[in-house]
């Protein structure tokens, strides 16, 4: 049953750009929007590996997104590396960054973990911001080359393919013994230690995996916009996947992706309704968030808890 639903959704998603392309310029714009939704969905899902499954609130996840974006931008612009190689490098470089940053961060728990990820994220942001000669500072890097084969539709399909592959991979990870251990640690860290789980190394590895996926999404995002800028690493960018996870549902794999898509859709609709309304987007987003925090945790998170405790 689930497989049939998944196949149907997939068919719909694959045929989407072909339908949209029939609508001329507006259709092309929506293909672009859908591509961004997929990329942001991947970013949100990557964070959720540590947030929802690991119970670690990272406020510096955008650092890896940004590292991925800059990897693609710098390799393609300055070293003329072909897109596919640059894209493959993005998760690797992000994973290296996550290895170093994660090593320090997993030594702390709770709020202190959050603040240290924030500090490291901002540290990277400042480095990118200040290092004009290498990263272009606050100008960012513009004019990333676009291979001719990547028309908007093809780029959409490429992103969808990568998204589906990452989804399958994350599914395997989450359901593996590694994934189960990570959830055990989330539920009860003390007990996990007592039964002999090396909590830190599991969290560290999880942090690296999440960073790698974030790097991949950042690389895709840089190529989509054909630029990379410092805002990609800023801590307010780190908040985006957290919000998406909260809205979509933190304890499912695909929830954050749905949350990201819904939030983006709302934003675009608001923008389309009236140009001036985009100024108030943050107010709308803030209010949605307030409602979710105040009423839906006894909704989304809370319902999950109820279901979970019943099945125990």
């Amino acid at each position, binding site marked *: 049953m689930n497989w049939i639903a998944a196949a149907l959704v997939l068919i719909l998603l694959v045929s989407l750009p072909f339908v949209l392309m029939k609508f001329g310029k507006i259709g092309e714009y929506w293909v672009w929007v859908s591509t961004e939704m997929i990329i942001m969905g991947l970013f949100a899902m990557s964070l959720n590996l540590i947030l929802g499954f690991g119970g670690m609130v990272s406020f510096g996840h955008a650092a890896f997104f940004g590292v991925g974006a800059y990897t693609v931008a710098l390799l393609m612009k300055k070293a003329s590396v072909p897109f596919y190689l640059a894209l493959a490098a993005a998760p690797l470089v992000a994973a290296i960054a996550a290895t170093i940053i994660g090593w320090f961060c997993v030594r702390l728990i709770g709020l202190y973990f959050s603040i240290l990820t*924030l500090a490291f994220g901002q540290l990277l942001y400042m480095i990118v911001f200040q290092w004009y000669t290498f990263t272009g500072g606050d100008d960012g890097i513009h004019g990333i080359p676009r291979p001719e084969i990547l028309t908007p539709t093809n780029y959409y399909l490429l992103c969808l393919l990568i998204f589906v592959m990452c989804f399958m991979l994350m599914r395997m990870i989450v359901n593996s013994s590694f994934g189960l251990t990570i959830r055990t640690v989330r539920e009860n860290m003390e007990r996990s230690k007592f039964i002999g789980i090396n909590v830190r190394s599991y969290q560290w590895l999880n942090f690296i995996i999440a960073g790698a996926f974030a790097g991949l999404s950042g690389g895709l995002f840089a190529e989509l916009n054909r630029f990379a800028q410092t805002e990609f690493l800023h801590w307010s960018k780190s908040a985006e996947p957290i919000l998406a996870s909260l809205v979509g549902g933190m304890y499912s794999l695909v929830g954050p992706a749905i949350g990201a898509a819904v939030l983006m859709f709302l934003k675009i609709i608001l923008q389309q309704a009236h140009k001036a309304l985009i100024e108030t987007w943050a107010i709308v987003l*803030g209010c949605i968030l307030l409602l979710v925090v*105040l009423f839906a945790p006894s909704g989304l998170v809370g319902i999950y808890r109820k279901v979970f405790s019943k099945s125990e």
Partner: protein
Amino acid sequence: MTFEYFVFMLLNGLSQGMLLFIIASGLSLVFGVLRVINFAHGSLYMIGAYLAYSLSATLTDGSMLSFLALLVAVPPAVAILGFVVEVTLFRRVYREEHLLQLLLTYSLVLILDDVVRVIWGGDPRNVARPDLLAGSVDIMGLALPTYNVFILVIGPVIALGLWLLLYKTRTGNIIRAAVSFPDTLGALGVNVSRVMTATFMLGCWLAGLGGVLVAALASVDLGIGMEKIIESFAVVVIGGLGSVGGALLGSLIIGVGITFFQLPFGRWALVFPYLVMAAVLIIRPWGLFGKPER
């Protein structure tokens, strides 16, 4: 570097640190009692700065008296805003997990910052310094703005006031008790939720005061809230979450540190707070003045 120049830079850095202390102490105080890291603290500070701008635009004479009027009027206004926010929103999430609390305060950042943008627009603003504080003071041959001296005086006054309040009054005893043993305090018949509201208002008052002070020091734009909240985080982490004394030390380290790092490193000095914050978290996560939890 000559000795005169060193003293000059030190005073400059100290005045930056004092301003930061006024803001960060509010954040720390609120964390200590409410156990919530208030991301919106920076937004409240920014609102204070813009309120000061609007009020000063109506009191155009630029005299010391009208500046004092700003100092008296704006911080309580921010405190009242804090009262509304605490009673309607914060109070609902004290028993929730950290993530929800953080997200609640973050949603406030989104809302408040955008409301400020809608009301005041994106142009930089500033408050003219009152004539009495507009000049400069001669410090061993170098001109230090009188206004910086004013902040150098106000900072310690606030620190002393907070210390007297927290350690020499009954109210202070109750606040400190609420930090350590809120349940016992409640059992003794103290209305703990009222203590929390009052502490939150005090924190907002400090944010508002910082806002007024910065409005006449530098130009005010939509980014100052975000900028200061991160610096305040650094301060509070360095000093220890919830410790006002730690916030003083942390502020001075950050203020003086940035000023001196600017000499050899230029704009790279802005990396300094994050470096110190990361270093403290790695070596001594509970901060210089804090106590390890658990």
